[in-house]
């Protein structure tokens, strides 16, 4: 079984939002919404500052609270790679998943269903990287299978320090930020 994950290099990332633009065009995300976004987290006092820039999205958690809470069976774990997806036709738009997500990753699409990052599963199944990864001009994003120790994402996570977001939520997120 594959276990898809992303390792995102905060050292290289400049926060240019190309990942956001690519997701919008690849997936036809409606105006006013986004499936991925940039967070600029700066700490310290001028001029002694530190800033981490992160491209964020659904963490495709191993223990996703958005799936357990869904009353319609719309939120589910895809058979391939542990990707968390939503059956649009089954979703009632009740927003339980939005409340449950610790990452603010979901929104209600104008057509009435909960929407979010799919890891571009349609591209991955065609042997391509997700659009955000493929477009990145800084080559800061790595996608792959954590079950395969030789995958790029496994190798880079083995060799670099990284952290995930909101670990206290206990959802086992699968997006890792390299420092």
């Amino acid at each position, binding site marked *: 079984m594959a276990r898809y994950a992303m390792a995102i290099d905060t050292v290289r990332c400049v926060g240019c939002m190309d990942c956001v633009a690519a997701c919008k065009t690849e997936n*036809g995300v409606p105006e006013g919404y986004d499936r991925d976004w940039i967070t600029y987290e*700066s700490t310290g006092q001028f001029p002694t500052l530190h800033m981490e820039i992160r491209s964020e999205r659904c963490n495709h958690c191993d223990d996703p609270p958005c799936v357990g809470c869904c009353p319609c069976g719309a939120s589910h774990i895809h058979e391939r790679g542990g990707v968390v997806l939503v059956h649009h036709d089954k979703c009632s738009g009740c927003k339980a998943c939005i409340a449950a997500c610790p990452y603010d990753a979901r929104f209600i699409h*104008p057509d009435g269903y909960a929407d979010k990052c799919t890891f571009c599963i349609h591209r991955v199944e065609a042997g391509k990287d997700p659009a955000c990864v493929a477009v990145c001009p800084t*080559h800061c994003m790595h996608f792959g299978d954590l079950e395969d120790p030789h995958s790029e994402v496994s190798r880079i996570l083995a060799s670099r320090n990284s952290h995930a977001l909101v670990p206290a939520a206990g959802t086992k997120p699968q997006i890792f930020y390299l420092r």
Partner: protein
Amino acid sequence: MNALSRRKFLKITGFTAGAAAAGTAALRATGVLQPPAPERGTRTVPTSCDICFWKCGAIAHVRDGELWKIEGNPLDPLSEGRLCPRGTGGIGAHFDPDRLRSPLMRKHLRGEEEWVEVTWDEAFDFIAKKMTAIKEQHGPEAVALFSHGIGGNFLKHMIKAYGSPNITAPSFAQCRGPRDVGFRLTFGEDVSSPERTDIRNARCLVLIGSHLGENMHNTQVQEFADAVGNGATVIVADPRFSIAASKAKYYLPVKPGTDIALLLAWMHVIVTEGLYDKEYVAAHGFGFEQFAASLAPFTPAWAYPETGIEPSVIEATAREMAAHKPSTLVHPGRHATWYGDDAQRSRAIALLNALLGSWGRKGGFYTPVSMDVPGYPYPEYPKSERGKVDNPGHKYPFAHETITTGIREATLTGQPYPVKGWWVYATNLIHALPNEAETIKAIQNLDLMVVVDVIPSEIAGWADVVLPESVYLERHDDLNVEWFREPFIALRQPVVPSPHEQKPNWWIAKSMAERLGLGAYFPWKDIEEYFQHRLTAAGLSYERLKKDGIIRGVKQPVYFAEGVTPTFPTPSGKIEFMSPQLQQAGFDPVPVYHRPPPAPPGSYRLLFGRSPVHSFSRTQSNRILSDMMPENEVWVNTDIARRHGLTHGQYVRLKNQDGVVSNRVRVKVTERIRPECVYIVHGFGHTARGLHHAAGKGASDAQLITRYATDPLMGGTAMNMNFVTFEPAEA
């Protein structure tokens, strides 16, 4: 937007669940698009991007007859298959509901933005009549062209054929001009564009106000990430803690306008400690002794009160630069019109690079190469007796390109001769030139004002005739024979048809020339015949270029170490540490620091820069790009915000020293900027009536730039000379 939650931000900026989809379906529902062609499946077309002027190679995807997405062309040496966010969002230009649809002529007064839709024939006939009258009465030089980007090449050709040498772009006097003059005075050559900076191989990269990552020239940002990823030492001097500063080993929060003091102190350390590349300086330098002696007073201790940078930091960073020489790149910047002594600051940057031996060296500056593609054999242009109008008496002796603001001045004064017609292509002069009142006053003196654009920009609002151009995804442009670290040529070709009456620039120029009796200058039937001719002459295949979008040439040496012969086309044939040219013209032969005037009490110096998702004032109506950044913010230091009772996210208006008040703009309360200045991203605060989506969002720096200083060497207009206070604004 750190302090606001992301979704909350979307709510307060007014997006709702009912917002229009960015895709094509919603646009069709609103009647913007014509019915789709009965095309099925997905096809790709290689072309090149035009959202900025970097011209990255791209591959557009069309799905079921509709533009779907655009990706980088892996064959392209500039983008290496990865576009920047503006390029990725570029399809929004095609779908923009606010774009110009048909030729327009003004109904009443200029600037009222009241239009009558006309046919192309009616528009051309009107313009031809006016141009003929201007030529008869004032001579052909009385028509000027402001043009930015490769798209304007055929219009330039048309204006030259008409007989005018007055062709200009804000990219010189409002942007990179001082830099190119400073480097030309020192090394004999421009930095040019794409910049010949070998960022990828730099072991130490010094950025002075350059905000790579926010300024999104694709190749440079890709190489910046490579340099950072490879562990290069990054040194950033900037009053603002930029994205680049967040990657720096040394961040130097320099006081605005004191960069020359910092540069002199760095050079003082490198020279007095003997850390410069002695062999390189001995072999290639001219006037080094006089230059070195001039640095004596400029110790780090002297620079400290000027710049705010501690002497130990100046020393440490100078030594770090020297430790990595010659692979230390002191980046020459791009938008360099800041304080009025900009060519001299650029010369100081050039001299620091010269000390480090980086010009012509790996990790410094490479020597650009290109393919040999002969031009089209046109008849000779008529010779102008009077010469150019922009720089009478060579008042700015080192201006080697035409000065936009010089043409504006001539239009205002009628001296040295009257200018009675403006053509404006793809440059929104209201946002690009300082002091818009002068621009508007100059326009009042014109007999003819033509604007060619894709959107109803502010400058289009002042036109007599507006000609709607096809966006880059719908048109051919001139062949791009690029100068870069490897030779290549690139094609821009249509992916989808224009949805309304828009036409490509080559067609506009050719049709106009034919109306003016200048058809002999456009002997080709269409642009493809022109391409065929030029490529055949170069021994290249147009069919292959159409299929691949790019043809790469054979790699050539680009560093001295690879066999490039060091040549410095200065008068001495060497790198001019001391400049006899400057001395003879009555200027400082070595850079001298002048302290900038302080901000008036209680006001803040207005600085401006770039966003990675917008190009100038051209993209705010692109729905994909505006969705990522719908408005700009004014960056205010935390302490200053507290002093004025400003809270993060609230609206204020900015009022400048001349009483000009901006549109409302959100406050970004941040630690990431010095207290004596504020910062906004350029290009927002649109006022044009036709820009329904973009108008009224954010503040325009251009509107607040009523004062500017002119660089005495080359006529560049320095724009960081304005000071603002905060005024209340409705929520």
